[in-house]
């Protein structure tokens, strides 16, 4: 398994290079000039040109690319063109809220969706199955921001149980940290609960028809043991895949939830950076996200061997 792990890590290098080149070119080819934005209302073309030169934006694109790659290899991801802050510092400041939100959402998702999917498969065709499938359709269909506003209205404004917005770091105490994460995590997980409940149900339905399940029943094993030890474990590979990619999607796609709940995370940072044409920050975030996808996919593949002893690397 170790050699497999190393091989996969080496394979990630060309992937990251392609991502780096693609994002670099896309940004340089898209409309908008950071030098004009920085220069302000009264800048002359000469002043804009001098800012462009100071930022290195007057260099040929390939020179800019190699300078950027060279700096990155030395651990320098650049400085924000707008705030003059290190891109990595800005990302570090925003990482905790996004990762916390994604973890909380994935915990909600797993705790709610997997049991629902198992029960729906076990009681296929019953009212509970129909209910789970109907709720899944709602989860898929209603936009995240609508769910966000609804839970804020009910749980924060009407009932007053939870705060309407904001994020508190874990350093400020677990209680307030958790209280402020409940509603955004619930909102963010709604789509994934729907997706994974359906995936679990479908996977379980296939496995429940297998001979070894019939054998387990014939041996007189309890229903819970059959469902969760024999069936779910064998149905886990596709479910783990979806949960893993779901986590990566949450980290890179939480912008709506972060806006509705005013969470200063990575999603908002990238939107702000794109709108301001803040190239170094955009590039650093995209690379980081690509790296995250590579690592998560690797972890998913490794987890297959843990859940299914037949899989060996």
């Amino acid at each position: 398994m170790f050699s497999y792990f190393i091989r996969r890590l080496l394979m990630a290098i060309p992937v990251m290079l392609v991502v780096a080149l693609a994002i670099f070119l896309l940004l340089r080819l898209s409309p908008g000039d950071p030098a004009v934005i920085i220069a302000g209302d009264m800048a002359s073309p000469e002043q804009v040109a001098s800012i462009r030169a100071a930022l290195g934006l007057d260099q040929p694109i390939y020179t800019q690319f190699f300078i950027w790659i060279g700096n990155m290899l030395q651990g320098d991801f650049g400085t924000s063109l707008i705030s003059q802050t290190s891109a990595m510092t800005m990302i570090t400041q925003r990482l905790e809220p996004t990762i916390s939100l994604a973890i909380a959402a994935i915990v909600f998702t797993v705790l709610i969706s997997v049991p629902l999917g198992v029960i729906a498969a076990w009681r296929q065709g019953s009212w509970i199955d129909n209910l789970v499938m109907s709720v899944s359709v709602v989860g898929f269909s209603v936009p995240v921001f609508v769910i966000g506003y609804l839970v804020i209205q009910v749980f924060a404004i009407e009932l007053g149980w939870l705060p309407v917005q904001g994020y508190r770091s874990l350093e400020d105490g677990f209680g307030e940290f958790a209280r402020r994460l409940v509603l955004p995590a619930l909102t963010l997980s709604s789509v994934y609960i729907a997706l994974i409940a359906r995936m679990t149900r479908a996977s379980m339905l296939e496995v429940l028809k297998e001979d070894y399940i019939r054998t387990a029943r014939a041996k007189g094993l309890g229903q819970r043991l059959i469902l969760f030890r024999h069936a779910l474990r064998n149905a886990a590979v596709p479910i783990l895949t979806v949960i893993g990619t779901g986590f990566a999607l949450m980290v890179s796609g939480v912008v709506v939830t972060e806006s509705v709940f005013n969470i200063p995370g990575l999603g908002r940072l990238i939107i702000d950076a794109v709108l301001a044409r803040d190239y170094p920050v955009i590039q650093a975030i995209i690379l980081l996200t690509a790296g995250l996808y590579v690592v998560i996919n690797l972890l998913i593949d490794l987890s297959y061997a843990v859940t299914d002893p037949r899989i060996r690397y």
Partner: protein
Amino acid sequence: MKPTSLRRFKGFALLSTLSVGALTFAATAQADTTVHAVMHSALRALDPVSSSATIARNHGYMIYDTLIGIDAEFNPQPQMAEWEVSDDGLTYTFTLRDGLTWHDGTPVTPADCIASLERWAAYDAGGKLIMDNTASLTALDDKRFALTLATPLGDLIGLLSKPSAIPAFMMPEDVASTAPGQPLPNQIGSGPFTFAADEFQPGVRVIYERFDAYEPRSEPPSGTAGSKEVYVDRVVWVHMPDVQTTVNAINSGDIDFIERTPFDLLPLLEGNPDITTDVLDPLGMLTVARMNFLHPPFDDARIRRAALLAMNQQDVLSALVGDPRYYQTCASIFGCNTALATESGGESLTSGGNLDEARALLEEAGYDQTPIVLLQPSDVATLAPQPVVAAQALRRAGFNVELRQMDWQTLVSQRANRNTPSEGGWNMMFTNFGVDSIWSPTINLLLISTGEEGGWFGWPTDPEMEQLRTDYAFAESEEQRKAMAEAIQEHAMEQTTFIPLGQFQNVTAWRNELSDVVEGPVPVFWGMQKNN
């Protein structure tokens, strides 16, 4: 409890030997008062002199101070310095008041102020006007410095006190010596708040702490003048990208202050007895259309005038604001309710437009149906409606209109493009100016008519306008200045330097725990008190 009464209460408690418990109570009553405010935009760039962003200006007023302030009636008042003018009107002697220190504890010196003025002049058109006409700027001693002009400049004090684009903020000499284009090395000012650099998160939050060594003036606060005594410990500017979340947050008490409340969400706040909504800046903003003078058809004054005649301010303001309590039609290029306001030449704008005359002018000018490109920022609520309404009005007059939608930052880049519209340029764009930034001919960027050299986007070339502006700046009496301003208004309407589309006020909301909120063109946090 106000600070003066608090101090009396403390004294009484000491004298009556009941002090221990009473002092503890008094201390906690004032302890840890933090105001959480949502401003109109996120703070990202920290240099209020090199950046023309309004939020950077507001940040500047928190941590820096100005030599001269401007009161709520737009009268210049001494702030860091008193001034005297020589009989010939050429020499201005500024005397720094006692007790001025930078946040690092060093005293403010004339050398700091001279360096700051020179840096300001490198970025601001008004500052450049002063420096271009300055014979010498020298320190006289450790409190005084003298600015000697080549010819009298009647509007000099007005330029030094202006609260917008760009105020003359004073910085320490080493900071003010920062080369153009380089970031400031630190955020040390002499203003009433210090900047919490370690806690700054660009685009998310910025924290200011009371500068305990600040020595305020004795006059009551008014605009950017008077006392800047701070009664709260910290002010936190939080950026919330979602307006509904902002409204929910103030209703629930998470935040205390919203600088600009979205007009469509105002009813959600007006029904809450715990919240006050009010206009802090009665002059508000003038929304304007600007044409590009470099390319046809708007290189022809008759076609620009036809566009003006097509517009109906009432339609624009209804779409933009909706609530008539917060807007008024106004054809003055200086904004209405200002000292120089006159609506001469803009009567059609406030009376529903004049389509017949617009069509006649287009025919006379031989408009050939060249499409005119209007830029529309779809992501800014206070700028998105104007192009749509204007496009419809222009089409009715006979223009062939192409509405080009984009996000604001793309527009910011595109408006600097001087090429023809078919090569990425443009014909007409829209923006809002705070009336405090346009109320006189010397500070109004839209009137600069030096073409591509130093003019604002649209780049009009109009030597007559430049002469009128110069005459205004060097006029020696108020009467002369007013007469010049009227001439400039008439000339601007005739040439259609830009089109005023109406004036509106922003509504500020705050929780009733806050009191003594200061009115004026700049949202300020001195003078304000918070009862926990």
